[in-house]
């Protein structure tokens, strides 16, 4: 036999999901709120529903392999080939302004080719960077500050950010970063200066140079941490790929969550997402 309490419980139980979602009409919400303190079973349900809702909201989406894109592009090319040769140029009902051209012919759509091309690009940049004459330190003029030696972290930071009132060109900033100390003492502020440059310098080439300089100082624990933290900040694909390569080669396991997020970022280039995915595979 149902007691009034029991029937109230059953009636209100059906309202609990809506109560947790805050979409009950005020009168019903008040009834549930009044009932809850007297009913441990409903309290437990509300707690569980809230936890479940949070877990559902926090669930990461499943991400397809990049092969799906390659297969799609191949299918699209096939279908385009089947079209009558004279593609009607008559405007569509609402003509989009974009003409999307496949960046990679699907016949040779090969992710590895794309990844390799990116790595080659970065490697070429690094190689060129090393070949250029950096000499003439004393005549440099940019990093020279009257009050401090240019290699001190303070002077380096000042010169890089233009705090001393001078505007420093990107190429000079690259030079400063490249000439930064090759080894660091524990707690050396150079690491922090370089991390700041990596995260906040407006020029991607300067950020790439900061990557390189930090790699030389990789024995410092702050470098590992800083590189992982920098992954979500970077938007330039070259810097993103350089960072991914670095955290993978330095086996920075804590970078896995950042890589996972990067692999799912809709604004990241496919090649970057593929590289992040490959990096996760190597790290876990």
């Amino acid at each position, binding site marked *: 036999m149902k007691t009034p309490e029991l029937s109230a419980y059953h009636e209100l*139980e*059906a309202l*609990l*999901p*809506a109560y947790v979602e805050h*979409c009950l009409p005020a009168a019903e919400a008040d009834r549930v709120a009044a009932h809850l303190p007297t009913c441990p079973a409903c309290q437990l*349900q509300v707690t*569980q*529903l809230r936890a*479940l*809702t949070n*877990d*559902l*909201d926090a*669930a990461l*989406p*499943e*991400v*397809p*392999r990049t*092969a*799906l*894109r390659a*297969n*799609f*592009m191949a*299918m*699209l090319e096939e*279908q*385009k080939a089947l*079209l009558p040769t004279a*593609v*009607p140029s*008559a405007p*569509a*009902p*609402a*003509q*989009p*302004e*974009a*003409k*999307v*051209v*496949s960046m990679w012919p699907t016949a040779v759509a090969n992710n590895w080719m794309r990844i390799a091309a990116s790595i080659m690009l970065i490697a070429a940049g690094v190689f060129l960077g090393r070949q250029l004459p950096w000499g003439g330190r004393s005549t440099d003029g940019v990093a020279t500050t009257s009050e401090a030696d240019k290699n001190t972290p303070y002077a380096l930071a000042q010169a890089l950010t233009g705090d001393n009132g001078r505007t420093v060109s990107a190429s000079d900033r690259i030079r400063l970063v490249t000439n930064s100390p090759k080894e660091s003492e524990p707690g050396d502020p150079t690491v922090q200066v370089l991390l700041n440059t990596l995260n906040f310098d407006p020029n991607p080439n300067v950020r790439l140079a900061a990557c390189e300089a930090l790699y030389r100082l990789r024995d410092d624990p702050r470098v590992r941490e800083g590189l992982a933290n920098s992954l979500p900040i970077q938007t330039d694909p070259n810097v993103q790929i350089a960072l991914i390569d670095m955290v993978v080669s330095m086996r920075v396991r804590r970078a896995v969550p950042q890589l996972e997020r990067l692999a*799912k970022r*809709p604004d990241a280039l496919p090649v970057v997402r593929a590289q992040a995915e490959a990096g996760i595979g190597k790290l876990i």
Partner: protein
Amino acid sequence: MTTTSTSDEALMAAVRADDLDQLVPLFERYHGPLFNYLTRLTNDRETSEDLTQTVFERILKYRSSYQPTQPFKAWVYQMARNVHADYWQRREKLRAADVDVEEVERTGGLRGAAVSQMRVSTCADDLHEALAMLPAPQREILVLNRFQGFGYEEIGQLLGCTAEAARVKAHRALQALRKIYFAT
């Protein structure tokens, strides 16, 4: 990016007029969500990749049936539901057919499926396992509501019921999931 500003419907109208390149931005916008939707329904990533591909094949095949006045999202999800239903029927038929299960298992057909199933459940957390245990219609409604960002109005349109009925169904599904998820 220039393509992001163009509406789904305008892009699809162009695809319909045989400008097939306009399907690329639509693919970029929808392949992730559709794959996610199908993976939650099938609990099998490999199958879901195939099914996602099939959805885009069907978009091209049936492009002339698209009415530019109808929301592309609803149209494409309806197509994804049909693709999933066809897959389900095929599977059931295969099961009903006179197939020597042991023979299939020995040759690896089912084992491959079992392994790919397992990969999802070992990678996924308890939540996904609990979701997989829900009856398919309840799972679908939760996936649409919680993972695909569908409102009750949109779910109602997709499932052919009112928004209010969709809301009640979603709440029942949430309660059912809670019972599985917190069962000890």
